[in-house]
Protein backbone atom coordinates (compact mmCIF):
# COMPACT_ATOMS: atom_id res chain seq x y z
CA UNK A 1 0.00 0.00 0.00
CA UNK A 2 2.77 2.36 0.97
CA UNK A 3 4.64 1.54 -2.24
CA UNK A 4 1.63 2.26 -4.38
CA UNK A 5 1.07 5.51 -2.56
CA UNK A 6 4.61 6.54 -3.30
CA UNK A 7 4.28 5.58 -6.86
CA UNK A 8 1.19 7.64 -7.36
CA UNK A 9 2.48 10.66 -5.55
CA UNK A 10 5.75 10.70 -7.45
CA UNK A 11 3.99 10.66 -10.79
CA UNK A 12 5.37 7.17 -11.39
CA UNK A 13 2.00 6.03 -12.65
CA UNK A 14 2.84 7.55 -15.97
CA UNK A 15 6.06 5.57 -16.06
CA UNK A 16 4.18 2.38 -15.31
CA UNK A 17 1.66 3.23 -17.98
CA UNK A 18 4.47 3.86 -20.43
CA UNK A 19 5.86 0.43 -19.86
CA UNK A 20 2.42 -1.12 -20.15
CA UNK A 21 1.60 0.66 -23.39
CA UNK A 22 5.07 0.15 -24.84
CA UNK A 23 4.97 -3.54 -24.06
CA UNK A 24 1.50 -3.78 -25.57
CA UNK A 25 2.55 -1.89 -28.66
CA UNK A 26 5.61 -4.02 -29.27
CA UNK A 27 3.87 -7.28 -28.49
CA UNK A 28 1.06 -6.52 -30.91
CA UNK A 29 3.56 -5.36 -33.51
CA UNK A 30 5.40 -8.65 -33.22
CA UNK A 31 2.13 -10.45 -33.65
CA UNK A 32 1.42 -8.39 -36.77
CA UNK A 33 4.51 -9.56 -38.55
CA UNK A 34 5.09 -12.97 -37.01
CA UNK A 35 2.09 -14.60 -35.45
CA UNK A 36 2.98 -18.15 -34.50
CA UNK A 37 -0.68 -19.21 -34.31
CA UNK A 38 -2.20 -17.77 -37.40
CA UNK A 39 -0.92 -16.61 -40.74
CA UNK A 40 -4.24 -15.13 -41.65
CA UNK A 41 -3.86 -11.53 -42.82
CA UNK A 42 -7.01 -10.63 -40.89
CA UNK A 43 -5.20 -11.54 -37.69
CA UNK A 44 -2.33 -9.31 -38.68
CA UNK A 45 -4.72 -6.50 -39.41
CA UNK A 46 -6.46 -6.87 -36.07
CA UNK A 47 -3.18 -6.84 -34.22
CA UNK A 48 -2.15 -3.80 -36.15
CA UNK A 49 -5.31 -2.13 -34.93
CA UNK A 50 -4.32 -3.04 -31.39
CA UNK A 51 -0.82 -1.69 -32.01
CA UNK A 52 -2.25 1.57 -33.17
CA UNK A 53 -4.56 1.83 -30.22
CA UNK A 54 -1.77 1.16 -27.74
CA UNK A 55 0.36 3.64 -29.59
CA UNK A 56 -2.26 6.29 -29.20
CA UNK A 57 -1.96 5.46 -25.48
CA UNK A 58 1.71 6.38 -25.79
CA UNK A 59 0.67 9.56 -27.56
CA UNK A 60 -1.60 10.38 -24.64
CA UNK A 61 1.32 9.92 -22.29
CA UNK A 62 3.21 12.37 -24.45
CA UNK A 63 0.28 14.78 -24.07
CA UNK A 64 -0.43 14.68 -27.79
CA UNK A 65 -4.17 14.37 -27.28
CA UNK A 66 -5.21 15.53 -30.67
CA UNK A 67 -2.87 13.18 -32.45
CA UNK A 68 -3.91 10.30 -30.25
CA UNK A 69 -7.49 10.87 -31.29
CA UNK A 70 -6.56 11.34 -34.92
CA UNK A 71 -4.42 8.24 -34.82
CA UNK A 72 -7.39 6.16 -33.77
CA UNK A 73 -9.83 8.02 -35.97
CA UNK A 74 -7.78 7.80 -39.15
CA UNK A 75 -5.64 4.74 -38.72
CA UNK A 76 -7.84 2.42 -36.75
CA UNK A 77 -11.12 3.83 -37.95
CA UNK A 78 -10.49 4.21 -41.62
CA UNK A 79 -7.19 2.90 -42.88
CA UNK A 80 -7.40 -0.45 -41.19
CA UNK A 81 -11.01 -0.93 -42.22
CA UNK A 82 -9.77 -0.40 -45.75
CA UNK A 83 -7.23 -3.15 -45.20
CA UNK A 84 -9.91 -5.48 -43.92
CA UNK A 85 -12.07 -4.60 -46.91
CA UNK A 86 -9.37 -5.51 -49.34
CA UNK A 87 -8.56 -8.72 -47.55
CA UNK A 88 -12.20 -9.71 -47.61
CA UNK A 89 -12.62 -8.58 -51.17
CA UNK A 90 -9.69 -10.63 -52.41
CA UNK A 91 -10.64 -13.52 -50.13
CA UNK A 92 -6.97 -14.08 -49.38
CA UNK A 93 -6.13 -17.52 -48.24
CA UNK A 94 -3.67 -18.10 -45.46
CA UNK A 95 -0.15 -17.37 -46.49
CA UNK A 96 1.46 -20.56 -47.69
CA UNK A 97 4.40 -21.72 -45.67
CA UNK A 98 7.17 -21.72 -48.18
CA UNK A 99 10.75 -22.36 -47.34
CA UNK A 100 12.28 -19.72 -45.18
CA UNK A 101 14.39 -17.25 -47.07
CA UNK A 102 17.73 -17.56 -45.36
CA UNK A 103 19.17 -14.74 -47.39
CA UNK A 104 16.28 -12.51 -46.44
CA UNK A 105 16.48 -13.51 -42.81
CA UNK A 106 20.22 -12.91 -42.66
CA UNK A 107 20.00 -9.62 -44.49
CA UNK A 108 17.09 -8.52 -42.33
CA UNK A 109 18.95 -9.38 -39.14
CA UNK A 110 22.06 -7.59 -40.41
CA UNK A 111 20.16 -4.43 -41.25
CA UNK A 112 18.20 -4.53 -38.00
CA UNK A 113 21.39 -5.10 -36.05
CA UNK A 114 23.09 -2.19 -37.74
CA UNK A 115 20.11 0.07 -37.14
CA UNK A 116 20.14 -0.86 -33.46
CA UNK A 117 23.88 -0.24 -33.28
CA UNK A 118 23.61 3.11 -34.98
CA UNK A 119 20.73 4.01 -32.69
CA UNK A 120 22.75 3.39 -29.57
CA UNK A 121 25.78 5.17 -30.91
CA UNK A 122 23.67 8.15 -31.89
CA UNK A 123 21.91 8.12 -28.53
CA UNK A 124 25.20 8.13 -26.67
CA UNK A 125 26.37 11.29 -28.40
CA UNK A 126 23.02 13.12 -28.40
CA UNK A 127 22.19 15.73 -25.80
CA UNK A 128 19.16 14.85 -23.70
CA UNK A 129 15.85 16.57 -24.19
CA UNK A 130 14.08 18.74 -21.65
CA UNK A 131 13.93 16.93 -18.34
CA UNK A 132 10.49 18.15 -17.38
CA UNK A 133 8.53 18.74 -20.54
CA UNK A 134 5.78 21.33 -20.42
CA UNK A 135 4.44 21.03 -23.94
CA UNK A 136 0.77 20.24 -24.22
CA UNK A 137 -0.46 18.94 -27.56
CA UNK A 138 -3.32 21.38 -27.56
CA UNK A 139 -5.61 21.18 -30.52
CA UNK A 140 -5.85 24.93 -30.64
CA UNK A 141 -2.09 25.48 -30.82
CA UNK A 142 -1.67 22.69 -33.36
CA UNK A 143 -4.43 24.09 -35.51
CA UNK A 144 -2.95 27.54 -35.34
CA UNK A 145 0.44 26.27 -36.44
CA UNK A 146 -1.15 24.25 -39.21
CA UNK A 147 -3.00 27.23 -40.63
CA UNK A 148 -0.26 29.80 -40.29
CA UNK A 149 3.24 28.45 -40.62
CA UNK A 150 2.32 25.26 -42.43
CA UNK A 151 -0.43 26.49 -44.70
CA UNK A 152 1.37 25.59 -47.89
CA UNK A 153 2.21 22.00 -46.89
CA UNK A 154 -1.32 21.69 -45.65
CA UNK A 155 -2.72 22.70 -49.01
CA UNK A 156 -0.26 20.48 -50.82
CA UNK A 157 -1.30 17.53 -48.70
CA UNK A 158 -4.92 18.20 -49.49
CA UNK A 159 -4.09 18.23 -53.19
CA UNK A 160 -2.21 14.98 -52.66
CA UNK A 161 -5.32 13.47 -51.14
CA UNK A 162 -7.33 14.58 -54.14
CA UNK A 163 -4.78 13.07 -56.48
CA UNK A 164 -4.80 9.83 -54.53
CA UNK A 165 -8.58 9.79 -54.67
CA UNK A 166 -8.64 10.20 -58.43
CA UNK A 167 -5.88 7.64 -58.83
CA UNK A 168 -7.72 5.09 -56.76
CA UNK A 169 -10.93 5.59 -58.69
CA UNK A 170 -9.05 5.08 -61.94
CA UNK A 171 -7.19 2.05 -60.65
CA UNK A 172 -10.30 0.41 -59.33
CA UNK A 173 -12.13 0.52 -62.61
CA UNK A 174 -12.46 -2.94 -63.98
CA UNK A 175 -11.29 -2.00 -67.43
CA UNK A 176 -8.23 0.15 -67.70
CA UNK A 177 -8.24 1.75 -71.09
Amino acid at each position, binding site marked *: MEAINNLISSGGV*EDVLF*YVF*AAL*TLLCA*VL*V*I*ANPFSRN*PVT*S*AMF*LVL*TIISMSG*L*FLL*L*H*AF*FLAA*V*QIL*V*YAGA*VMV*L*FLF*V*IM*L*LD*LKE*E*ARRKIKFF*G*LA*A*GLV*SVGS*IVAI*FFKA*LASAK*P*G*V*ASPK*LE*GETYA*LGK*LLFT*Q*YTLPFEI*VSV*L*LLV*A*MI*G*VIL*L*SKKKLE
Partner: protein
Amino acid sequence: MHVGLQHYLAVSMILFCLGLLGVILRRNLIVIYMSLELMLNAANLALVSFSRFNDKLDGQVLVFFIITVAAAEVAVGLALIVALFRKRQSAHVEDLTSMKL
Protein backbone atom coordinates in the same frame (compact mmCIF):
# COMPACT_ATOMS: atom_id res chain seq x y z
CA MET B 1 14.90 5.77 -13.82
CA HIS B 2 12.39 8.24 -15.10
CA VAL B 3 10.93 7.56 -18.53
CA GLY B 4 12.56 10.01 -20.92
CA LEU B 5 13.03 10.67 -24.56
CA GLN B 6 15.37 7.74 -25.07
CA HIS B 7 12.73 5.28 -23.87
CA TYR B 8 10.25 6.47 -26.43
CA LEU B 9 12.92 6.47 -29.10
CA ALA B 10 13.85 2.93 -28.21
CA VAL B 11 10.24 1.84 -28.59
CA SER B 12 10.07 3.69 -31.88
CA MET B 13 13.28 2.07 -33.09
CA ILE B 14 12.15 -1.44 -32.16
CA LEU B 15 8.82 -0.79 -33.83
CA PHE B 16 10.63 0.36 -36.93
CA CYS B 17 12.84 -2.72 -36.98
CA LEU B 18 9.83 -4.96 -36.56
CA GLY B 19 8.18 -3.27 -39.49
CA LEU B 20 11.33 -3.64 -41.52
CA LEU B 21 11.57 -7.32 -40.73
CA GLY B 22 7.96 -7.69 -41.74
CA VAL B 23 8.62 -6.03 -45.08
CA ILE B 24 11.64 -8.19 -45.74
CA LEU B 25 10.35 -11.51 -44.54
CA ARG B 26 6.63 -11.71 -45.18
CA ARG B 27 5.34 -12.78 -48.55
CA ASN B 28 1.82 -11.52 -48.47
CA LEU B 29 1.64 -8.10 -50.08
CA ILE B 30 -1.04 -6.93 -47.68
CA VAL B 31 0.98 -7.93 -44.67
CA ILE B 32 3.99 -6.18 -46.16
CA TYR B 33 1.85 -3.14 -46.48
CA MET B 34 0.83 -3.37 -42.85
CA SER B 35 4.47 -3.62 -41.90
CA LEU B 36 5.05 -0.42 -43.82
CA GLU B 37 2.35 1.18 -41.72
CA LEU B 38 4.18 -0.02 -38.64
CA MET B 39 7.32 1.73 -39.84
CA LEU B 40 5.40 4.91 -40.48
CA ASN B 41 3.92 4.71 -37.01
CA ALA B 42 7.35 4.25 -35.54
CA ALA B 43 8.38 7.47 -37.21
CA ASN B 44 5.26 9.13 -35.84
CA LEU B 45 6.10 8.03 -32.34
CA ALA B 46 9.64 9.34 -32.63
CA LEU B 47 8.38 12.66 -33.92
CA VAL B 48 5.79 13.06 -31.21
CA SER B 49 8.30 12.29 -28.48
CA PHE B 50 10.82 14.72 -29.99
CA SER B 51 8.07 17.27 -30.10
CA ARG B 52 7.22 16.68 -26.45
CA PHE B 53 10.76 16.66 -25.14
CA ASN B 54 11.97 19.60 -27.17
CA ASP B 55 8.97 21.80 -26.43
CA LYS B 56 8.22 22.31 -30.08
CA LEU B 57 4.92 21.62 -31.73
CA ASP B 58 6.36 21.25 -35.24
CA GLY B 59 6.93 17.53 -34.76
CA GLN B 60 3.25 17.00 -34.18
CA VAL B 61 2.42 18.97 -37.30
CA LEU B 62 4.69 16.65 -39.20
CA VAL B 63 2.94 13.64 -37.72
CA PHE B 64 -0.34 15.10 -38.85
CA PHE B 65 1.04 15.28 -42.38
CA ILE B 66 2.43 11.78 -42.17
CA ILE B 67 -0.92 10.40 -41.16
CA THR B 68 -2.56 12.19 -44.07
CA VAL B 69 -0.02 11.02 -46.55
CA ALA B 70 -0.19 7.50 -45.16
CA ALA B 71 -3.93 7.50 -45.68
CA ALA B 72 -3.49 8.54 -49.29
CA GLU B 73 -0.71 6.04 -49.76
CA VAL B 74 -2.77 3.20 -48.32
CA ALA B 75 -5.67 4.00 -50.60
CA VAL B 76 -3.52 4.00 -53.70
CA GLY B 77 -1.46 1.04 -52.58
CA LEU B 78 -4.45 -1.11 -51.83
CA ALA B 79 -6.01 -0.20 -55.15
CA LEU B 80 -2.79 -1.30 -56.81
CA ILE B 81 -2.82 -4.54 -54.89
CA VAL B 82 -6.39 -5.19 -55.96
CA ALA B 83 -5.48 -4.47 -59.58
CA LEU B 84 -2.47 -6.76 -59.32
CA PHE B 85 -4.51 -9.48 -57.73
CA ARG B 86 -7.05 -9.30 -60.52
CA LYS B 87 -4.26 -9.80 -63.00
CA ARG B 88 -2.24 -12.51 -61.27
CA GLN B 89 -4.71 -14.13 -58.90
CA SER B 90 -2.13 -13.89 -56.16
CA ALA B 91 -0.93 -11.42 -53.60
CA HIS B 92 2.40 -13.07 -52.97
CA VAL B 93 5.44 -11.03 -53.79
CA GLU B 94 7.25 -13.92 -55.43
CA ASP B 95 4.42 -14.48 -57.82
CA LEU B 96 4.51 -10.89 -58.91
CA THR B 97 8.00 -10.84 -60.31
CA SER B 98 8.04 -11.40 -64.03
CA MET B 99 11.79 -11.11 -64.54
CA LYS B 100 13.88 -14.17 -65.22
CA LEU B 101 17.08 -14.69 -63.37
